């Protein structure tokens, strides 16, 4: 018997689920979309409503983690699923407009399979992720890029307002809706929440894709302050996303490119502090390089300023410059209530930038 034949998660096509969804078809790998290793995706309908169903694929766990105790795997993955579901419900309850929303969730039991249970989440249907819409040549779709980034900034601000840090923001997790006009932040699978413990909260290690991680994580530096770490990470990832939109490179790659190889994370064997100053030097070179990818000087300057405070490679110095000084108490300890990593300034700035761009570049 092949894997898929004894796999309930792969056998939903044609089924009518308990809460009224009809499974139309399995989504074969679609341009720009991310299926994930542990889920099977379908198009489902309920009345006129069309949506995207993500079924948890237990079989994949065993394929990925052969040799590990089954109880451990089930426990780990079930916790991960429950965590994501809880976060999504939290977003839904708070009506976050720029976060890819869960429409429904449930569990189907399909008799005749070794593992008959198929927990699933139903999301609003997207047009794919932002990568399918990308063009990195100069002056192309500037207004659209700025609008998309504005949407993402709003999404992050909304998440932060309900104590969620995304932690895995990257191009594949920015989903497009309404023919690409609206962008939303998707995939909270690696997110962290101040009020719900995440199964992947592994001593403060970076939970997202390390190839997009803020540089400190690549040197194994973990800020001990949860709130500070989570918010500063999202801010870096957002800045890095801006860089990707316009240059096709993320900030981590650009810093690495401008860093002498002996200091790069793949070689360095010393402490993070030992490489601080060289990262800063490489970072400024990266910003200069980024600027050169934008023809319009004014826009280049504005975006560079935002990137500079979003992506500064030393986390303590990251964040809005006005808030950094405010973030220290008189005794020099960190003021956790500061708005060093607040997205409100960024949202306002992108709002202005994309409106201006609508006149300037369209």
């Amino acid at each position, binding site marked *: 018997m092949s894997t898929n034949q004894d796999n309930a998660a792969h056998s939903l096509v044609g089924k009518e689920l308990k809460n009224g969804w009809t499974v139309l078809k399995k989504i074969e*790998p*679609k*341009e*720009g*979309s*991310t*299926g994930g290793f542990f889920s099977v995706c379908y198009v489902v309908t309920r009345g006129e409503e069309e949506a995207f169903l993500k079924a948890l694929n237990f079989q994949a766990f065993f394929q990925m983690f052969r040799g590990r105790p089954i109880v451990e795997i089930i426990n780990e993955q079930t916790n991960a699923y429950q965590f994501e579901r809880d976060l999504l419900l939290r977003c839904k309850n708070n009506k976050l407009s720029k976060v890819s929303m869960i429409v429904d969730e449930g569990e189907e039991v399909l008799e005749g399979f070794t593992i008959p249970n198929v927990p699933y989440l139903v999301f609003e249907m997207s047009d794919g*992720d*932002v*990568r*399918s*819409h*990308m*063009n*990195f*040549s*100069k002056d192309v779709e500037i207004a659209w890029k700025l609008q998309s980034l504005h949407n993402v900034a709003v999404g992050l601000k909304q998440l932060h307002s309900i104590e969620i840090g995304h932690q895995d923001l*990257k*191009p*594949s997790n920015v989903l497009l809706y309404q023919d690409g006009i609206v962008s939303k932040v998707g995939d909270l699978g690696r997110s962290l929440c101040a009020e719900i413990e995440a199964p992947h909260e592994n001593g403060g290690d970076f939970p997202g*894709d*390390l*190839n*997009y991680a803020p540089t400190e*994580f*690549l*040197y*194994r530096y973990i800020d001990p302050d949860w709130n500070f770490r989570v918010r500063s990470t999202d801010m870096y990832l957002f800045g890095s996303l801006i860089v*990707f939109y*316009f*240059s*096709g*490179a*993320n900030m*981590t*790659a650009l810093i*690495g*490119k401008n860093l*002498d*190889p*002996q200091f790069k*994370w*793949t*070689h*360095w*064997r*010393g*402490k993070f502090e*030992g490489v*601080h*100053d*060289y990262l*800063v*030097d490489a970072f*400024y070179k990266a910003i200069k*390089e980024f600027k*050169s*990818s934008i023809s319009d000087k004014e826009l280049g300057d504005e975006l560079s300023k935002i990137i500079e405070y979003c992506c*500064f490679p030393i986390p303590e*110095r990251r964040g809005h410059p006005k808030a950094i000084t405010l973030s220290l108490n008189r005794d020099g300890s960190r003021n956790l209530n500061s708005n060093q990593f607040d997205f409100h300034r960024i949202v306002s700035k992108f709002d202005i930038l994309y409106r201006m761009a609508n006149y300037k570049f369209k």
Partner: protein
Amino acid sequence: MAVIYEIKERRVIPNWRDFKRTLQLGELSQSNKSAEPIILNIDRSIEDWKQGKNIGTAADLINSAFVSGIQSSEVKQAIEFIKSDQQKASSSLLDLIKLIELDSPTPPVISNNSLLEIDVDTVNEFQSFINNKSFHKVINKTKNRTKNELRNPIIWVELARLYTMRGHEHKAENAILTALHIAPNNRFVLRSATRFFIHKEKFDKALFYLRKAEGLKDDPWLISAHIATSSIMGRFSPLIKEGKRLLDSNNFSDYELTELSSSLGTLEFKDGSFKKAKGFFEKSMKMPNDNSLAQLEWVSKDEQRFQINPFQFDKVINPFEARALELYERGNWKDAFYNSIKWFLDMPFSKRPALLGSYIAGSLLNDKKAAIILCQVGLQANPYDPTLLNNLVYNLATSDNQQMLDAYVPQMMEIDINGLPNESKVTFQATLGLVSLKRGDTELGMKMYKVAIQNATNIRNDYLKNLAIANFAMELINLNSPEQMIYIDLVRNMKIPEKHKDLQQLQSEILKKINTQAKN
């Protein structure tokens, strides 16, 4: 008369180069290991690429490949995909592709052991290198970078270096203090600052910032700087013991320990312990850099038991100081001059290469123009240096450049001669004697020369005495003075040690000139 100013006791003070070259020389590497590099994977990006091939997923995969250092057939596909439609790619993305395709970073190409910001072949090129206008532009550009990169200590150090090359002491100090404020523990910043403060004879400050640095005790490059600076001040560094511990720790490469070994060797040498010094110097020569090589070259001139041929160390980059000193010692003026120029280009704020080069050019190669240029360049970084000013005036006077002489002599006269070391006083008096003779004030000129000779005798410096006599004799011959025979006899009967080949040449030139005159 012109002289080479030679430091009485050379220490292993860090050499100060721009950041790029310092990196290339490997002086910022760190083999003290505390963690393994992180392991990354690119499976998710590969999976996404397989599911949907577009420029976005291709860029995603290329970023992941570059960040992780992982290559795969899918990465190659993504690269080809982007290359096939370059119009949609950015230059950054194409650059990343180039770096991935290179696989390993290209080591810097260093030919003829030379790693200079700019190299020159002629004196005219050298002159254009220090051209005011273009240099001003470089400073302005760097200053603008500091404004845009306020928290970048590297660029503040670069600005300080440029200001130091121009002799703007206060501006340079402000820039170096800013760098120290931003990065008080950074090796590049601290070693640059140490050299700067020593250049400005602010030894206390050099020690202060070194002492404050975290990690000082575990950094052989910084301990060496601390030992050397303390030694200049006549103190014993409390880090000597730590330095010896690092030498025995097996945690560092021979290259990382070369300056520390050399510093410790110099201390033992000063203390008269030849055997211990020899051990340290031998260790320092296992993989020397330009600084430790020059240190042993200098020590070998003082102590015959240390034998060194700097040309045998053909892997040392920028060995110009050691080679210039060695070639000068051998009497190979032309190559010694050439290496002095390179040495100056390597360290364009240092007066020692300017002095050596200008002395060789003006007094031994009879290339007054080159000597004058070198003195002027040296004075830019060291505007009030009496020896440079002296040598400039000497070369102007002997080349009969009356106009420039009139411009520089007043500057020289402003220097308080009483505040100078005895050796410099002799030089000054002789040069002022020369100027007076050139200006027709024979009586004053002769008087000044005689005072110089007497003072050299008083301080028992035979070299200076003979140099003053030879220079005086040359001028008396030019003037056809009745007193010339007295000094010609003195020159003829001089017993010049083998090591003073410059004096030997001067002696031979004077005697040749007399013979020629006698024949005519």
